């Protein structure tokens, strides 16, 4: 299989340790490995090229965060950038405001259209819709039969007739309207994007039934050609979103990036198996880890994040142990936190607290206000919060644009935290351990 990106990066990274700024030189090798990983994941050559030069541009001159290597930082930039590209818009399906909603699925032969029709129908029925399937594939042997079997297994109506595909769709939609069914899903025959006649047929169907969504169904194992396919379908037909199939295998799925890059359209759903409930909404972060090498990079980025705060955490731990924890420590943690963007990860690094906070999540907006409150304290107040009396509280609330209640809450939380630390320190760890011995 593919050499692991993180392994390869690690060795490069070692060499780079201890440099202050990202430069063309110190990120060159890291970028080369990332390029290779993307190509191995089937991201289109051109897309890779553009992406790498964008990352390079973005990286150069950036200050390297303390305790991590330039390479690790580049990986983080790559990771964030890819997540951004893949997940920019919301991937909500569009519905009609009056009359039945019509969705139309199209794509190459065997990409998974018919199965996707069944999956979407099943998915949206659970959300209260009444799906109606239209079998507009008169090309492939037993295609209609296939959709009928899927419909039957879901106990949903399937429309078919001996007419041509355009007519089938028209009369199918009319029938759905008649019967008051609110979600029409059209299965079309697989076709090559260079097949002029068949592409014309799709355009005609679209014109006649004006679907709210035209979904390109694409196989996640697709290679470099994904760009040509996507481009043709977008130009010839115009698509609204992408359904990426067969992600239950070990394909790295770089095609996702290519599809997204050339069409600008969001990936809305992924298929994760042959069964009709094997459908998931698209998660960009998961896709990014996958493209870059199955989770390695997430670990790496996490490691990088931990590395940054490790030093700080050690200092903090010392203070905690000495029971000197003050608002100053709290504040510096907050700053650290903001850099990393993930509150839970930093909390988990505070000894003795991390574990007990699992599943506890923190509101980022609340964080901004906490920061403002601490900012409005004097140096003395930060070190010795016990001196904060009523009038000081009022001043702090005013200065931070919050209110007395919020200042009180923060103080209360702070003292609780301090007590927790104190109690924890008093605990005899050895005794605790013997209690759990068999």
């Amino acid at each position, binding site marked *: 299989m593919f050499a692991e990106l993180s392994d390869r990066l690690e060795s490069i990274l070692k060499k780079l340790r201890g440099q202050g700024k990202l430069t063309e030189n110190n990120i060159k090798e890291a970028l080369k490995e990332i390029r290779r990983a993307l190509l191995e994941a*089937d991201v289109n*050559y051109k897309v890779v090229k553009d992406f790498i030069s964008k990352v390079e541009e973005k990286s150069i001159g950036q200050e390297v965060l303390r305790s991590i290597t330039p390479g690790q930082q580049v990986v983080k930039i790559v990771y964030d950038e890819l997540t951004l590209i893949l997940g920019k818009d919301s991937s909500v399906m569009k519905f009609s405001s009056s009359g039945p909603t019509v969705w139309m699925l199209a794509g*190459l032969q*065997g990409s998974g259209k018919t199965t996707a029709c069944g999956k979407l129908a099943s998915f949206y029925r659970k959300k209260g819709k009444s799906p109606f399937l239209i079998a507009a594939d008169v090309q*492939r042997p*037993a295609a209609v*039969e296939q959709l009928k079997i899927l419909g039957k297994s879901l106990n949903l109506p399937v429309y078919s007739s001996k007419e041509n595909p355009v007519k089938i769709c028209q009369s199918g939609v009319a029938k759905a309207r008649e019967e008051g069914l609110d979600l029409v899903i059209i299965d079309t025959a697989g076709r090559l994007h260079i097949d002029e006649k068949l592409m014309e047929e799709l355009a005609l169907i679209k014109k006649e039934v004006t679907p709210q969504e035209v979904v390109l169904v694409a196989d996640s194992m*697709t290679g470099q050609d994904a760009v040509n396919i996507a481009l043709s379908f977008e130009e010839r037909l115009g698509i609204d979103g992408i359904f990426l199939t067969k992600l239950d295998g070990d394909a790295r799925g770089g095609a996702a990036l290519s599809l997204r890059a050339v069409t600008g359209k969001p990936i809305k759903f992924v298929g994760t198996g042959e069964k009709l409930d094997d459908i998931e909404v698209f998660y960009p972060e998961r896709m990014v880890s996958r493209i870059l090498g199955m989770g390695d990079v997430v670990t790496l980025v996490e490691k990088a994040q931990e590395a940054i705060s490790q030093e700080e955490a050690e200092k903090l731990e010392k203070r905690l142990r000495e029971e000197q924890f003050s608002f100053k420590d709290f504040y510096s943690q907050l700053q650290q936190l903001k850099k990393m963007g993930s509150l839970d990860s930093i909390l988990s690094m505070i000894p003795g607290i991390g574990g007990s906070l699992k599943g506890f999540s923190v509101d980022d907006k609340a964080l901004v206000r906490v920061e403002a409150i601490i900012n409005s304290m004097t140096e003395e107040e930060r070190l010795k919060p016990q001196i904060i009396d009523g009038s000081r509280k009022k001043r702090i609330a005013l200065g931070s644009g919050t209110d007395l209640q919020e200042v009180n809450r923060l103080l209360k939380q702070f003292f609780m935290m301090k007590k927790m630390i104190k109690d924890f320190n008093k605990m005899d760890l050895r005794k605790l351990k013997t209690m759990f011995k068999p």
Partner: protein
Amino acid sequence: MSFKFSIEKLKQCLSKTKKSLFGKITEVVGLSKKIDQELLDKLEEVLLKGDVGVKATEKIIQDLKNGVKEEKIVEPQKIIDIMKEEILTILQNSQTSTKMLSQESNPLIIMIVGVNGTGKTTSIAKLAKLYSDQGKKVMVAACDTFRAAALEQLSIWAQRAGVDIVKSQPNQDPASVAFDAVKSALAKKIDVVIVDTAGRLHTKYNLMEELKKIKRVMGKSLEGAPQEVFLVLDATTGQNGISQAKMFDEAVGLTGIILAKLDGTAKGGIVIAIANELKIPVRYVGLGEKIDDLEEFDPKDFVEALFL
């Protein structure tokens, strides 16, 4: 062998490929005055865009460099010949590694495997027609008992090809269908049996075990069966094709590859990567959805057509 190989048709189909991919080689080389890094980068680009993959591309480029150095080549034009030669060597090395003795077996049992939707059932119809046109008595076996309407699809194709079919019930054990098929073929003096299997991802343990069982059962009813196990690969497939070939080979021992859907704009370069790593020969290419759209694969013609 009596198959007629129509290089014209292949050329026709590949010319699209050629224009968008290898056509550029000629272009690039035509513009180059000397062999330099820029030219090599361009050649690399051409290969990578053709799904040849990073590893095989690096090998080809490295060999190219060596060849240029050893033979003291200075004209950029010659670089095409060397590259052709290299790709041909990679493909030919794997073509010769498997013997095609099986053609003498009677009955000849061919098992068709592959991931979902690559073109297995359609390729079976095409193969059935090919053998039937040679005057062979052909039978297809519907061992895909999973996919909705897989049986109906194969039945329609069997009818079109004018061949016999062993049917199955939905969700019946596919191995039992395969067993019956071989038995029935022996009784009916069938020459060629082509076994359809459900598409499955190579990473699914249970499904790969099921495939092994289908193969094993056939071997029990007829020694040496199946003599051929073909992997149907979609020509648009990227680097995952290597993983597919590797894992299907490990499970059931592949004797060849059918490269379907080469009539699109995909370059099918993945077979070069597979040949480079696994030495599994490509036997046929699929060039359309109709029953006659199958051609025997010839590496020489393939490479020629690529560079035309």
